[in-house]
């Protein structure tokens, strides 16, 4: 089969077309050459089509079990179910980079499709920036990480199989959504750099960048949520966030991206923070890039890290230096020309959003510092240390809670200046009610003091969202419903995302304050009671899957004597890799999850069994989904389309 060669060739061609895309329109911009400027759009499409061809070729190699291709041999197996063969394309280093490039091409093509709504000179420059990023990335794949390398003439009979941890639905969808987010920030980045190059630093670039940023942010939110959900059910011990360097690598662009979403709003509406917003756009994309560097270069030790390879590290570092370094240099040279003409008072919404940006930036730097600290420590020859959950929880938690308190106030504040009396009038009832309701939960549930405080904050935010909405729709002239319908889609997007934060926070509070964990030895027929649920171990069944054999425990769960569920936790042995995997069994619920995983096989048919009752854990991901939906709702507000048409005319 020739497919891998075709794929490889297409990728090399894509690199050259991307390079042309990165150069020609910029020359066209300098010389005002219309032909070169108009080459940007077709070049974008051709580059994307070639990357897509390359991706399809690799997918075909997987589907056809072409083990003469090294990457396929390392990550697949004839027994692997077909959907995992397809998702195995991005199960390793080389293929996941190809997916990265494909998604970059997809975003660039989407921008190209919308380019008629942008000024004549801006669109080609934006596409050229994306072309430069794509060139660097494709070169990285071609020179250091080609997935098309053949194992000839000694072709293995069968593949080494996909890492069992990755044989899971969560891992089919998690990387693509995460990359959609990461790479999507390159669009905001390209808009910002184009604004610096063209000197067109008025607020219009913010308006163009906003929907793109919102969509990327929504994808990143979904990607992180999926990752957390996957870790929860797949890693077998019921945690949902580990402060692992790679998780942090996705959290940092999310935090910076959240700041960017807000500062773009201020820049668009009020024409302030212009220079800051540009920097934030660069910062957000840099963090996406940095995340890729940290994961791929092996400078950090992580469960997610792919095999360390110094040549790859040097290449990514060089890319990082060229792309980020030159952007920051350009920023330093050009951003000084920006003047903000509008002033604002310290009670205006601008000020609240500035505070939002400061806090989110501090949070980002907190995570960055915690992630890089072991590296700095080692580089200075001070020895090996690791920074774990205690640091992050102690530093991140309070700042995040403070930010959430402010989230209640920000939307109610008016642009420029807000009357103190208005704030107090709106805020007093929700504040009292939140503290009171939370106090009831605190006394009834017999929790720690921090539960009282943080639950009050979550309730405060939800109540303030409602009060703010109500103050907008309440009126004498027309009915509540008519007024509610008139509010823009973007407004409901914001509300949904903010309430999502409250929902996720409630989940976080209860899962840490009210969860029960028990490790027991159960012989067949024995039961144990955990938090009002009676778990009975009925025995072990032998099960054979396509590429594994498993011991499946049968555990019935009764509440007040009534059977509510039968759970089947598994201990799997993947026959090709000889890896043992623990597959936990879940009984999900709105207010609690039951979570059972098998430990070791003990004497006389007994097994070690881990049982968890997790309070409100679904709320964490429900909150994440709400935030994502909010971001999308805001991005597809019709006003962006309208204004874009005006800009065109």
């Amino acid at each position, binding site marked *: 089969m020739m497919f891998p060669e075709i794929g490889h060739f297409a990728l090399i061609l894509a690199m050259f077309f991307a390079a042309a895309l990165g150069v020609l329109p910029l020359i066209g911009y300098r010389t005002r050459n219309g032909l070169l400027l108009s080459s940007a759009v077709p070049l974008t499409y051709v580059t994307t089509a070639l990357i897509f061809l390359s991706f399809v070729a690799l997918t075909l190699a997987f589907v056809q079990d072409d083990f003469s291709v090294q990457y396929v041999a390392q990550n697949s197996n004839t027994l692997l179910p077909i959907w995992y063969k397809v998702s195995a394309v991005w199960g390793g280093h080389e293929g996941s980079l190809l997916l990265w490039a494909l998604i970059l091409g997809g975003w660039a093509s989407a921008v190209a499709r919308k380019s008629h709504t942008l000024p004549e000179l801006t669109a080609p420059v934006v596409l050229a920036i994306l072309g430069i990023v794509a060139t660097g990335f494709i070169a990285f794949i071609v020179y250091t990480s080609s997935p098309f390398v053949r194992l000839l003439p000694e072709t293995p009979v069968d593949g080494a199989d996909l890492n069992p941890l990755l044989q899971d639905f969560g891992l089919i969808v998690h990387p693509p959504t995460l990359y959609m987010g990461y790479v999507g920030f390159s669009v905001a980045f390209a808009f910002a750099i184009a604004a610096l190059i063209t000197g067109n630093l008025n607020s219009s670039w913010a308006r163009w960048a906003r929907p793109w940023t919102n969509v990327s942010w929504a994808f990143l939110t979904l990607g992180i949520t999926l990752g957390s959900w996957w870790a929860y059910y797949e890693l077998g011990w019921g945690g949902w966030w580990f402060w692992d360097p790679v998780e942090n690598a996705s959290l940092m662009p999310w935090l910076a991206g959240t700041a960017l979403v807000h500062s773009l709003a201020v820049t668009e509406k009020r024409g302030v923070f212009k220079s800051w917003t540009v920097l934030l756009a660069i910062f957000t994309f840099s963090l996406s890039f940095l995340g890729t560097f940290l994961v791929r*270069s092996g400078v950090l030790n992580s469960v997610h890290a792919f095999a360390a390879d110094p040549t790859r590290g040097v290449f990514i570092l060089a890319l990082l230096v060229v792309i980020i370094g030159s952007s920051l240099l350009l920023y330093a040279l050009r951003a*000084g020309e920006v003047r903000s003409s509008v002033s604002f008072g310290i009670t205006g919404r601008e000020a609240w959003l500035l505070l939002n940006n400061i806090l989110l930036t501090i949070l980002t730097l907190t995570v960055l510092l915690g992630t890089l600290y072991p590296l700095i420590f080692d580089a200075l020859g001070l020895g090996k240390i690791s920074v774990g959950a205690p640091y992050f929880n102690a530093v991140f938690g309070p700042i995040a809670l403070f930010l959430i308190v402010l989230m209640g106030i920000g939307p109610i504040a008016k642009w420029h200046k807000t009357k103190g009396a208005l704030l107090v009038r709106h805020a007093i009832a929700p504040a009292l009610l939140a503290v009171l309701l939370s106090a009831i939960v605190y006394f009834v549930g017999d929790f720690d003091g921090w539960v009282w405080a943080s639950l009050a904050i979550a309730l405060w935010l939800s109540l303030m969202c409602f009060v703010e909405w109500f103050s907008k729709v309440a009126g004498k002239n027309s009915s509540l419903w008519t007024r509610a319908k008139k509010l823009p889609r973007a407004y409901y997007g914001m509300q949904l995302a903010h309430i999502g934060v409250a929902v996720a926070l409630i989940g976080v509070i209860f899962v840490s304050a009210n969860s029960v964990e028990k490790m027991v030895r159960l012989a067949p027929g024995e039961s144990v009671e955990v938090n009002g649920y009676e778990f009975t171990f009925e025995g072990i069944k032998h099960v054979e899957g396509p590429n594994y054999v498993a011991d499946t425990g049968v555990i019935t769960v009764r509440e007040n004597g009534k059977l509510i569920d039968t759970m089947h936790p598994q201990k799997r042995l993947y026959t090709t890799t000889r890896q043992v995997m623990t597959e936990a069994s879940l009984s999900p619920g709105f207010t609690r999850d039951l979570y059972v995983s098998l430990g070791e096989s003990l004497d006389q048919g007994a097994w070690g069994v881990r049982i968890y009752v997790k309070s409100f854990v679904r709320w964490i991901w429900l909150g994440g989904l709400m935030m994502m939906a909010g971001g999308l709702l805001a991005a597809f507000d019709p006003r962006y389309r309208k204004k874009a048409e005006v800009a065109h005319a």
Partner: protein
Amino acid sequence: MRKALLFIPFGVFVVLGVLFYMQLGKDVHYMPSALVGKPLPEFQLVPLESSELVGHESLPKGPYLINFWATWCPSCSIEHEYLMALAAEGVPIVGIDYKDEADAAKQWLLDKGDPYAVVLQDEMGYFGVDMGVTGAPETFVVDSQGRVAYRHQGVVNEAVWQTLQGYMR
């Protein structure tokens, strides 16, 4: 002044870049032992060739190597050849047969040769726990004062020996 401030992000980035460059290619999995500089822990183990418990008196006069190995460990057979070469050069090596079966171990040494001054059996892995061993093979350098001087995780080869040699004092 304002102009200068705009260069701060670029400056921070340059510092980070240098830092990353310094860290590239380092083995992030390398973990120094907490025992370094401390005397070798006490033990009571049975040598492979007898049935009496022995302690420190069974060890050679330092400096010497302590090598944790096992017949179930594929990397151990890779490093075995190099250990034979070291032994031929006169480097004393104490073998700890880690979580293994005596018969299999004896057969292994018959088949591949015996580079060890003495082989002690750590069937339950207790001595391994005392030494902070995470897997086989692992090799420690004990200096002439009887103190642990260095720990290496993984296969010993020519490059690793260059490092180990520096601690053999």
